[in-house]
């Protein structure tokens, strides 16, 4: 099958590649462009570990056709830190021990980032709702919720 050209911005850099028309965004990011931030967990849109931001909206990369991302802004956890300076959410996740095996962490951070961009002072219920599509099988939800609430109150948190 003929491949199609595809261009988008990934974490602030212009990227161009050729994709199979049936490729999803997850395979394109991981196998095509070498960004291993988003993970494969189920391929069915149920676990949330592949969550990325497409034009600021959280989307499940495993259910997103790669060609639908032409010209869009894609952001992943790999581009979240500003050089050596961690994003306040990353600092808060470290301070609150909000990762155990670490596999759900990139998706959790992305879901939290989308939440704080829209709602800088979320309630606990809003935090729970925002990460309800992200499964943590190590069941460390409480430290994750605490970390997101703490980041919301930290200086610089509004920088999405």
């Amino acid at each position, binding site marked *: 099958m003929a491949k199609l050209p595809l261009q988008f911005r990934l974490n602030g850099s212009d990227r161009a590649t050729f994709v199979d028309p*049936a490729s999803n965004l997850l395979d394109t990011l*991981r*196998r095509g462009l*070498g960004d*291993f*931030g988003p*993970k*494969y*967990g*189920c*391929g*069915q849109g149920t*676990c949330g*570990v592949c969550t990325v931001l497409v034009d600021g909206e959280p989307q499940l990369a495993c259910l997103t056709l790669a060609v639908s991302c032409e010209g869009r802004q894609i952001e*992943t*956890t*790999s581009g*979240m*830190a500003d050089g050596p300076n*961690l994003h306040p959410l*990353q600092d808060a*996740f*470290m301070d609150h*021990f909000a*990762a155990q*095996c*670490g*596999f*759900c*962490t*990139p998706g959790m*951070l992305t879901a939290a980032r989308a939440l704080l961009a829209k709602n800088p002072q979320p309630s606990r219920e809003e935090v729970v709702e925002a990460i309800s599509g992200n*499964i*943590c*099988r*190590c069941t460390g939800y409480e430290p994750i919720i605490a970390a997101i609430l703490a980041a919301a109150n930290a200086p610089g948190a509004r920088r999405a």
Partner: protein
Amino acid sequence: MATMEMRKDLFADERDDNLNVIGKGVQRQDMPGHVTARTRFFDDHAFDGMLHLKVVRSPHHHARIRAIDTSAAERAPGVKRVLRGADVPVNKNTLLSLINFGKDDEPSLAVSKVSYKGEPVVAILADSEAQALAACKLVRIDYDPLPAVFDVEETLKPGAPVVNETYPGNYFEYHERFDHQKLRFGDVERGFAGADIVMEHRYQMSPIEHAPTETNGSIAAPEQNGRYLVHSCAQGLFFALGTTAKIVDVESNQLHFIGGTVGGGFGGKVDSLTEPLAVLGAMLTGRPVRFVLDREEEMLYGSPRGAERIYIKDGLMRDGRIVARHIRSYFDAGAYTRLSSYAAIKCTAHVPGPYWIPNVASDIYVSYTNRCPSTAMRGFGVTAVDFALEVQMDRLAEAANMDPMELRILNAYRDGDMKPHRRAAKNTALVECVQVAAEKANWPLSEQAKRASSLIGGGAGERSQIPATQLDARGQIGRPDSRNGPVTQVLPAGTSRIAPSKQPVMEGARDGRATPTQVPRYEPQRPAAPPPPPAYQPAPPPYQPASSYSPPPAPPAPPPPVAPAQPQHGAVRFSSVFGTRRR
């Protein structure tokens, strides 16, 4: 970070210095990688020219394979290689063979029959995952369905379908002599006869899927000098390395395993489910090979926690003392052993729970059924029986009209109490745990229960003694009558070691079943010819009175063949499997 309280009054024997880390918040070394997505899990590696491996799995619970036709799949676009059982150098393995425990019983790719739905039969290596999946649909396998058995007790009955040809009785054979793990301490029957209340209940657990967020998988790639690099999800990296080396028949120093980042394991990543075929594929194609289970395969083929059926029979006095406990449990191994043989040993070591009971017996079976093989998961062999034991304790409290917390304090081990395993309990703390839990829950306890202590009342008189113990021949393989056999021996009080029966496995006639298939065992260190099986030896005299007990005469078995000592890989770690003590 909240700090924890170290109750040094309870753990006086533990280290007495002040702890620098426990109870304090210390940053984990892997946390910066996790929050920046720089942690590399096994699948986070790119290789040029990587092939994708997918597996054709059995749609049947139990079926004979009449024929396999892979010709169309081999011609499919992108397919580089098709693997069948005959391509696997050592196509029969059991995980604990690394410590020489148990017989090889599980093929990497099924050859003549499948024993559970999801069992792998054919592997396809193709340029893309989509091509491999498309080619899987072109494989034609002609099955002849067989009757299947799913119940842990039904499978032990004569006439049940044989699930696993290596263990034709459908039970794991311990030391090639016993059909279960057995514990005897005192005389439970006399205990029940003297009890005010005798209560028996049945507990049934379900299998539990680990469901790690990262599915099982690995990537194998040829390195220089005939070595293979393997990025693995394994929880036990050297366990996976040893298993892979055996199955693909290479020296372990030809394998370079990289791991340590596991995207959720919980016990479900100890089985080396993908590494052997990934390495074999890389060897046969010279290309990097990625073999990752999808979510459905993880559920079908990734082992769950084995379901257990547990019967607990207790003798209870009206004052709340438990005087006898008999536990019978069946551990559902599924179709192959994996780690279930170890689960039953752990279970036996755990009963009768944290309680001093003067008469204890337990019989723990590993049953094969036509279900997905089960394996390790967070306290496997212990958690299920604990659930059963503690529900039983609540029922006993109700029967004795006692507070359940008080019943536990009354029966809890105290320091110095003799356990049925013939070792003294030490550093016991159940009494204090219950007291603290009751306090935190505002649960009223009697003054007597509040004053109780693990340091008081234990290890004296009857509580410190090994009682005279009833033995029977139940569970010896090759004795069709043995499972319900009568008492054959009484060990006098104080006997700490029971000499195991040396009776060999009899040929044929196991519970009236056909002669078992002889499955060659993997024996890398031995010369070619195996020693002939020892001749049948009659059982020792069935009954010896307690007063004149002497050890049964050793059967005149032929001298053991002179063989070089086998390496005991990891024996220290798993020493409980052999019953050897760790010091």
